[in-house]
């Protein structure tokens, strides 16, 4: 064994010991390259999802039915921009550059959550996104607050606090619609029918088809498998649906007394694969919009820099 080998081994042992003791890995610690790469991919994808996630609801900003709903929706979109920024900042502690991540998003080299490739057809979709999509996101994100990488875990703590507002405003919006006319109730049911299965797909492929899960769990990046989180989400959501008075579009949904959870049907995994491949209803539109925003904003970024430079010079 050479000196470098044993040095490397010692670093690896330290890393394993820190993770094994449930302590946090911090930015300048030594870490295995694969751990770093996994985190960059996951955090970037998460950041991109927040940024792209502004679009489906942004679609309704100018057509919100009241000033109150408009102010709420604006605050929510602003939170999502903020979440994206927390996460890009966490990714940057791993030695990548935010501008580079944005390039990768608009070039299609990095992904974002498949859920944002579905259209928002009515204002009820705004409520259902808050209730189901943000609800599913909370299920995914709460365990990430204990992720082994410190900056990611800390970003998730901030995000989870704010997501709770997102979910509750969605549910309240839907309750309001359900107290309305027959047509409004039908609008809610239609939105639930369209968003239920894509929401279940947010947890990713079934455990048997999720090759990276085991390693991510060993590294304590992930704390639960996809199927565990999906089950937790269904168990949380069914009573909420009952209270709301909507039907979840799954004939297989049934309480299983024996294991104390809800049985549910299998999502259409071929649909998820298609959406991830880029063939969802809105993939091209979402990325194009992001690209346009980035390119149209270039002059603002340059002007701000020129202004800063001018002020710096005149101060000298």
């Amino acid at each position, binding site marked *: 064994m050479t000196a470098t080998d044993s040095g490397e081994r010692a670093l690896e042992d330290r890393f394993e010991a820190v993770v094994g003791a449930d302590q946090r890995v911090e930015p*300048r610690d030594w870490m295995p390259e694969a751990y770093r790469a996994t985190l960059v991919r996951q955090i970037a994808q998460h950041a991109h999802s927040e940024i792209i996630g502004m679009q489906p609801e942004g679609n309704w900003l100018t057509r919100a039915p009241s000033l109150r709903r408009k102010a709420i929706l604006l605050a929510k979109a602003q939170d999502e921009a903020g979440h994206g920024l927390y996460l890009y900042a966490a990714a940057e502690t791993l030695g990548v550059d935010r501008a*580079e991540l944005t390039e990768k998003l608009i070039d299609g080299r990095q992904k974002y959550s498949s859920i944002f490739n579905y259209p928002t057809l009515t204002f009820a979709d705004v409520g259902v996104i808050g209730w189901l999509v943000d609800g599913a996101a909370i299920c995914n994100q709460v365990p990430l607050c204990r992720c082994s990488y410190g900056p990611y875990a800390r970003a998730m703590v901030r995000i989870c606090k704010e997501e709770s507002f997102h979910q509750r405003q969605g549910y309240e919006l839907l309750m309001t619609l359900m107290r309305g006319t027959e047509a409004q109730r039908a609008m809610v049911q239609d939105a639930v029918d369209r968003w239920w299965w894509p929401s279940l797909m947010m947890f990713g492929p079934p455990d048997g088809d999720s090759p990276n899960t085991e390693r991510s769990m060993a590294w304590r990046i992930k704390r639960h498998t996809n199927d565990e989180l999906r089950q937790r989400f269904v168990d949380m959501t069914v009573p909420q649906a009952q209270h709301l008075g909507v039907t979840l579009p799954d004939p297989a949904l049934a309480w299983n007394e024996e294991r104390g959870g809800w049985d549910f049907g299998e999502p259409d995994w071929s649909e998820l694969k298609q959406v991830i491949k880029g063939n969802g209803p809105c993939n091209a539109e979402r990325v194009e919009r992001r690209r346009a925003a980035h390119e149209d904003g270039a002059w603002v*970024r340059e002007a701000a820099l020129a202004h800063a430079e001018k002020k710096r010079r005149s101060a000298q």
Partner: protein
Amino acid sequence: MTENKAGWPLYEVFVRPRRGLNHVHVGSLHAADDRMALLNARDLYTRRNEGVSLWVVRSDAICASTPDEQDPFFAPSGDKVYRHPTFYDIPEDVPHI
């Protein structure tokens, strides 16, 4: 890495949650200059009244110890148990000490 492609440097953000408490590091952001860093920090880190005062400082202005917790840098305090009050045995019936 403090300059991204747009050339906006990286800043670290510190928030004083309320009077009487220290400023605490909350995260980082990019901004063209100090003024923009403050405004962005307000919009990003204090949307829900999380602070009454903000500090921003360019990341490249921070001087840091090495991250290793077993670093010899911190060794001088390691063997000085007599700095802690519990080091000293005082009979229980001695009051107020």
